[in-house]
């Protein structure tokens, strides 16, 4: 895609969002929106600014980020290992792959009662739910990605003498990386949703606690302010982390312009 049209698209997008926010602001200003239920963007911004001065606000964000980091890392490590194990051992493929597929679609919030009974109300419970909410998506996608590696790569590597561990590390894994990345991205969005969901249900934790506070106090601007934080983290990870890696891979493989 020519650079110019990328710029134009960015310009168009920002124009759209700025005018939508502007309209919202004007409507709120004109008193056309119920302030208690839908506070003006300026008020939400004000609440954010105010909270940014509070240590407890940053502690809440920090503790949520710690839990997602722990939960997601475990999911990635375990998911990749499970995906490879399924490929490597036929018996596992035949028995576990359908179970994993089902668990991937299983509503992760259903793990909350299990977690509470096993671990009690603590970090471990939240992390457990996050892991179980995302690990199966990563495992299934990894397994698919490896199974879809074009056989010609394996044949070519074999005639050059590659086998065993070397074949996995140097050929199968890198050949599968573009599709594995898709699984990691899916797993991330599952993990993040599950974290916020379980923090709200279990309460007293991180961003979930802030939601609770806003709700109890009937402070809709706080609720929206926390939403802004949740959205910001989603965007940051999606575009800042995954987007970057994806661009790098597409560039290297020459996949630009093919989707």
């Amino acid at each position, binding site marked *: 895609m020519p650079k110019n049209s990328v710029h134009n698209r960015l310009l168009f997008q920002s124009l759209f969002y700025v005018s939508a926010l502007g309209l919202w602001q004007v409507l709120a200003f004109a008193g056309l929106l119920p302030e208690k239920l839908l506070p003006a963007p300026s008020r939400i911004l004000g609440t954010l600014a105010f909270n940014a001065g509070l240590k407890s606000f940053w502690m809440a964000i920090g503790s949520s980020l710690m839990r997602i980091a722990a939960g997601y890392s475990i999911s990635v490590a375990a998911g990749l290992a499970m995906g490879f194990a399924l490929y490597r051992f036929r018996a596992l493929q035949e028995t576990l792959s359908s179970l994993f597929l089902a668990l991937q679609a299983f509503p992760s919030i259903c793990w909350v009662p299990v977690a509470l009974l096993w671990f009690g109300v603590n970090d471990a419970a939240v992390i457990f739910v996050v892991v179980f909410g995302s690990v199966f998506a990563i495992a299934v996608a990894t397994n698919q990605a490896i199974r879809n590696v074009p056989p010609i790569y394996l*044949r070519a590597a074999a005639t*050059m*003498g*590659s086998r065993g561990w070397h074949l996995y590390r140097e050929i199968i894994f890198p050949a599968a990386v573009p599709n594995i990345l898709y699984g990691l991205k899916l797993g991330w969005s599952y993990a993040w949703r599950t974290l916020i969901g379980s923090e709200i249900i279990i309460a007293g934790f991180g961003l979930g606690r802030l939601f609770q506070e806003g709700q109890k106090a009937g402070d809709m601007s706080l609720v929206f302010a926390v939403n802004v934080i949740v959205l910001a983290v989603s965007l940051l990870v999606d575009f800042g982390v995954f987007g970057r890696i994806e661009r790098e891979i597409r560039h290297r493989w020459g996949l630009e312009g093919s989707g």
Partner: protein
Amino acid sequence: MNPAGSTSSSVLALRDVSKNFSTRRGELNAVTDIRFDVREGEFVCVVGPSGCGKSTVLNLIAGLDRPDGGSILLDGRPVDGPGPDRVVVFQEGALFPWMTVSENVGYGLKVQKVPAEELDQRVEKVLRLVHLDRFASSYIHELSGGMRQRVAIARGLVLQPRILLMDEPFNALDTQTRDLLIEELRAIHSEIRNTVLFVTHNVREAVYLADRVILISFRPGSVRNIFKIALPRPRDPDNPELEAIVRGIVGELHEEVEKAVAKEFGP
């Protein structure tokens, strides 16, 4: 010659090799009683109608597949699985897109744990041989089709295989590029005198390159005839003698193609 018909200098020997595939329409006897030798430094071409089992034979030699009967000997020892002494150059799409040109070419050496310094030297040398030294750090998608096949050839040559197996490596190329690569392949062979088994369906190409041309019959695939090409090198593609040999082989090939058409489309 010993009773099996092989000479002491034969690198590769196929003895009554056969291979069946089970398909939905039943058992398919793809090749049968395949028997030929390839000697040290020889350039041997295999021609035959499409579907006669050329790739099947090549895969058996490469060890990517196992024969159902007969034996395949490399330097007198039975072939057991794939290995770097019998590298295959495939038709297309076998280069690794996540590696640069030099990483692709160095991969086989890395598998063999060749020290980094020696690896770099050998990769550089072979890239110069195929005129790609300027593209060492390019990714595969940045190369033209002809350049990609040169990488594929370099990737095979760098391992100094006992025999280089090539399965219609220039099929996906336009005629001009194809002619260029054939010329390069000829020049490389005359320089390093490596042993090559080259599958093609282009008889002219085969006669231009080969010491011997093996014609495979259609279903079951079997050696129908072996033509010795005694013309001096470098050969002139317009030489009437070469023309005559090509015509002779094409005549026999057409009989096999007609058999193939009758079997595929007949009653």
